[in-house]
């Protein structure tokens, strides 16, 4: 059997009717990995022995009311998994083989008896937009292996797109779920800030980070969010807001939905093919009874600078914990305490991580704090106000997820600023703390996927999912499969 041909729901039925068992499902996942992983390189660590053992156990006990019973999942490697190596794609944590606890999201998946297939590649400490800053491997885009899968959750998006797992968890600080989902032609949601517990997510920028699901359909995505969302006493920034039944919001009906389309999201710098696909999608929404108008988010162009100052500042503080004392790799050359800190960090961190720590330390340092860090915090308020204002009149904001389709491996990695500005359409969403999803809305002439971004009000994931699902019902982009490692069917 091929995972490609199924969703969580269809597999649930097959398992229930005993057409397949969990061991078949887990075998299908590892067989696919065996077949395509040499081209895709989505995983850092596989969990095969434990996964097969668990599958056997699940087949013995049988399904109860679990919502993800036996479903193969891949986990981004910055999410803590007890006893399963967690590296953040960094050499610093290359020996972190035995994490002491599971992240809250992992506990929740375990409670529904999902099966963890392995840990997925990413940009080192989630700092990057192409998964090229990983110190383990360069993950490739399943639609064309000369291209990047996006990042930082590039392994998560590629593994789902290549049919290696049914779904994956990623994390999104400035677009790290939505942009790779867009590049790989899958569905990726960044929930409202505080919707999902960050306990056990290795912190990058704590005021922006969120964990979210990457799936092949909107319905699967809604089902996973329903499970991982919710307040958690272990994360004081998680919101005490009821979790809705997101799957019940998928009515297919968007009549009367008011869509705002920021002119900044479809203007200069947006590739014509991407713009055309998005305009075509908007026509589709019109045909379904929704209305759209062009609006302005006037502070959009300041989002990238704001984001890099704030996220790097937060990162410079968060990454201070990697000191070579309690975990990770300590430099063998260190003779003094000071050398232990400096050499362990310098040998363990890659160039991009060092660059962000340097930028953040600079922005927070005496004499520069007001001019850079505090200034950026104030501009963040203006960017958030832009969204607040638009959401008084409209239900959702739509535009491209990314100004372009996937770029070639090696094309942007030597020019940090160009790489940073690539995230201009996803970053404002994190700064404002609102939810955003990327769904497939077309293909470029080169056959690379194009993503439509749908942004909602705080905690209005239901509306975002309803809009995304209605479009998916009317289109077939999500059914197309990359021809990788031979024909998929």
């Amino acid at each position, binding site marked *: 059997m091929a995972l490609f041909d199924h969703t969580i729901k269809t597999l649930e039925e097959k398992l229930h009717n005993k057409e397949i068992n969990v061991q078949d499902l887990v075998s299908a996942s590892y067989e696919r990995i065996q077949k395509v992983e040499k081209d895709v390189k989505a995983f850092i660590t596989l969990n095969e022995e434990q996964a097969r053992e668990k599958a056997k156990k699940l087949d013995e006990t049988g399904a109860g009311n679990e919502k993800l019973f036996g479903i193969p999942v891949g986990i981004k490697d910055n999410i803590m998994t007890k006893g399963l190596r967690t590296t953040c794609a960094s050499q610093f944590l290359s020996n972190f083989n035995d994490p002491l606890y599971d992240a809250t999201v992992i506990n929740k998946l375990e409670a529904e008896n999902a099966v963890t297939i392995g840990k997925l590649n990413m940009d080192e400490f989630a700092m990057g937009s192409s998964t090229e800053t990983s110190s383990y491997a360069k993950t490739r885009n399943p639609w064309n292996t000369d291209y990047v899968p996006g990042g930082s959750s590039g392994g998560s998006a590629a593994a789902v797109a290549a049919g290696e797992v049914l779904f994956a968890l990623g994390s999104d600080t400035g677009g790290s779920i939505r942009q790779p989902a867009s590049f790989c032609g899958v569905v990726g949601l960044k929930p409202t800030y505080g919707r999902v517990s960050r306990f056990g997510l290795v912190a990058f920028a704590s005021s922006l980070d969120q964990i979210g699901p990457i799936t092949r359909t909107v319905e699967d995505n809604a089902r996973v969010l329903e499970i991982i969302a919710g307040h958690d006493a272990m994360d004081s920034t998680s919101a005490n807001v009821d979790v809705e039944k997101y799957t019940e919001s998928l009515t297919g009906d968007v009549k009367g939905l008011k869509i705002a389309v920021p002119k900044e999201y479809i203007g200069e710098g947006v590739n014509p093919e991407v713009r055309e696909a998005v305009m075509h999608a908007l026509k589709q929404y019109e045909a379904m009874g929704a209305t759209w108008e062009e609006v302005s988010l006037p*502070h959009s162009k300041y989002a990238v600078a704001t984001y*890099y100052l704030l996220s790097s500042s937060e990162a410079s503080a968060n990454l201070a914990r990697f000191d070579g004392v309690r975990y990770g790799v300590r430099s063998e050359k260190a003779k003094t305490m000071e050398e232990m800190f400096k050499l362990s960090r310098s040998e363990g961190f890659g160039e991009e991580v060092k660059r962000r720590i340097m930028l953040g330390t600079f922005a927070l340092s005496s004499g520069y704090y007001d001019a850079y860090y505090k200034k950026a915090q104030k501009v963040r*308020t203006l960017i958030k106000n832009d969204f607040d204002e638009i959401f008084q009149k409209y239900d959702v904001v739509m535009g491209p997820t990314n100004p372009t389709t996937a770029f070639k491996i090696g094309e942007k990695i030597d020019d940090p600023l160009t790489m940073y500005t690539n995230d201009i359409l996803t970053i404002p969403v994190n700064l404002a703390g609102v939810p955003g999803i990327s769904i497939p809305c077309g293909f470029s002439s080169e056959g690379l996927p194009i993503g439509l971004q749908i942004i909602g009000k705080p905690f209005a994931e239901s509306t975002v999912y309803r809009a995304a699902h209605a479009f998916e019902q009317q289109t077939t982009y999500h059914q197309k499969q990359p021809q990788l490692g031979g024909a998929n069917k």
Partner: protein
Amino acid sequence: MAEITKEQVKHVADLARLAITEEEAEMFTEHLSSIISYAEQLNELDTENVKPTTHVLDLKNVLRKDEPKKWITQDEALKNAPDKQDGLFRVPSILE
């Protein structure tokens, strides 16, 4: 226009507990200068009366009772340590 010097970059590296080579210092000087120059565009905005955003949720202090809970054992805490001795983390001497 912010001009960042190599000396500043070395100072920042020291603050961040990073040992950088001369080549890295040069590279970071160039990169940080271009990123900071790009960030100067924020000065186009008048933010005199704008309040800074630290968190998007309207969170006040989140408090809980200070009660001891079972979490990890000493052995577990030391399990991933690069160096340990007698139930403690071991580090190089800080005294000559």
